[in-house]
């Protein structure tokens, strides 16, 4: 007896097991932007709650009105301008020194042996120590805050850049050597673009560390700037004044981090997805 096998189309299962699109929440509710906004609102609500419970903790509205007052009297803009100027000078010098040291450490074993441990010590010293030391060295004025920014930012730039240089594909160096490409051109077209991502990561850490440094330095040894103004209200025992400036620092750092650095990084890494015209959305790893 022969059995006849029939090939029937696979059964599609009962309706109970049917695969349907999952009913999802609306996109706007689950997006990263929504999550971020929720975190801001939650923070504000928590703040309001704490302010209601403790009278030594000013409410968001009180802080805002205090800041408006500082703006109206011109203190916010003038002090912020002074600090930003010092911070900018310090960061620029720190990035230049850090990139040079990082390239040396990443490229030469001798330089690594000589500089690496010094840099680790630099990383380990907190910004407050540099702020105190710089104030004792240079007294009141612009120099102490600038030097504090440099000293607290350089180790972060150095360590990241050195890591970036070590990660450069050695085959590209070999190619450059085989074609006899001069060192200056190699630096400009091979090393610097290759470490750009690491420099951005470095600047991000350095901005955080440097900002800490400048606030502390102005707190201890300046007669102008946002750190000094925060201390002014602290000494006057005016809680809303002190916290208003703290909130201002936080908002400023968030804006720098989310806005400025992110946008520059995005532009610099167009080549990663090979999109020369920049017509598609660029996937950039956040640095």
């Amino acid at each position, binding site marked *: 007896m022969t059995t006849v096998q029939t090939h029937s189309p696979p059964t599609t299962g009962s309706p109970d097991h049917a695969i349907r699109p999952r009913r999802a929440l609306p996109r706007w509710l689950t997006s990263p932007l929504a999550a971020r906004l929720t975190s801001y609102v939650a923070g504000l609500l928590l703040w309001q709650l704490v302010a209601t419970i403790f009278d030594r903790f000013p409410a968001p509205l009180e802080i805002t009105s205090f800041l408006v007052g500082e703006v109206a009297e011109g203190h916010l803009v003038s002090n912020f301008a002074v600090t930003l100027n010092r911070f900018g000078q310090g960061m620029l010098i720190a990035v230049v020194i850090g990139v040079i040291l990082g390239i040396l450490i990443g490229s030469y074993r001798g330089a690594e042996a000589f500089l690496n441990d010094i840099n680790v010590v630099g990383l380990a010293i907190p910004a407050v120590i540099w702020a105190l030391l710089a104030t004792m060295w240079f007294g009141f004025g612009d120099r102490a805050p600038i030097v504090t920014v440099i000293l607290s930012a350089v180790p972060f730039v150095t360590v990241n850049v050195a890591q970036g240089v070590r990660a450069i594909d050695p*085959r*590209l160096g*070999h*190619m*450059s*050597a*085989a*074609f*006899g*490409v001069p060192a200056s*051109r190699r630096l400009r*077209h*091979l090393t610097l*673009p*290759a470490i*750009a991502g690491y420099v951005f990561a470095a600047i991000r850490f350095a901005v955080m560390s440097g900002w800490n440094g400048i606030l502390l330095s102005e707190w201890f040894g300046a007669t102008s700037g946002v750190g000094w103004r925060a201390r002014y209200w602290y000494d006057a025992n005016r809680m809303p004044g002190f916290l208003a400036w703290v909130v201002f620092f936080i908002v400023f750092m968030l804006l720098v981090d989310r806005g400025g650095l992110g946008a520059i990084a995005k532009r610099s890494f*167009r*080549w*990663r*997805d*090979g*999109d*020369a015209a920049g017509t598609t959305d660029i996937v950039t790893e956040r640095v």
Partner: protein
Amino acid sequence: MATVTIDKLRKVFPTATGGHVAIDDVSFEIADRQFTSLVGPSGCGKTTLLNIVSGVECPSAGEVSIDAEGHQARIGYVFQEPRLLPWRSILDNMLYVQRTRDDATVERCRNYLELVGLRGAEDKYPAQLSGGMQQRAGIARAFSVEPDLLLMDEPFSHLDAITARSLRAHLQELWLETRKTVMFVTHDVMEAVELSDEIVVLAPGGRLHELIPVTLERPRRASDVAVARLKADILGRFEQLEQQKMVTQ
């Protein structure tokens, strides 16, 4: 144009156990405008030899001299992988290795891109091109420096058979037009027969085994009977070499 003389060359890489001999007392000469292939099993020192000739590595003993009619020899190098700077456009990658950056140089680079079939790709980034196109760019880059000596290290080994065949044909055309002195490393005997004037066979241990002149007419194709016959003959010699090795072991 250049004549290459390799004289009693030896290269030893230091290892924990004393040293690994990559090239052992190798001497031969490459005539001006000659296409020479280096053939041999993996680890017989082909790439090391190329790196020494390019000046990237130093020999442990012996000497390589490149006579380029009185001036310092200009060297072009095509690698196994394209080795393009990913953050520079194709044209900028070509300019990266040039001595000058004037209009004539840019024009020359564009010409070589056109010769390898990459017209219109000047402003693209490497990631926007296929593997075959990137390798073409690598070949154009090497030719565009107008080298006295062109070094090629298994340039088609990472490509699929069809792309490799088309690039080989392109390379042969380009070489017939320019007649550069070429050192071409390959493990593919057919490729060596198709392209070379002379085949240098290196044996395991980095020793020179044999020099085989190839006098077949050009342009050659892999499907030509004479090419296939010579390939079979050389493979036969390889088998003998392996048998001798087994006997001595």
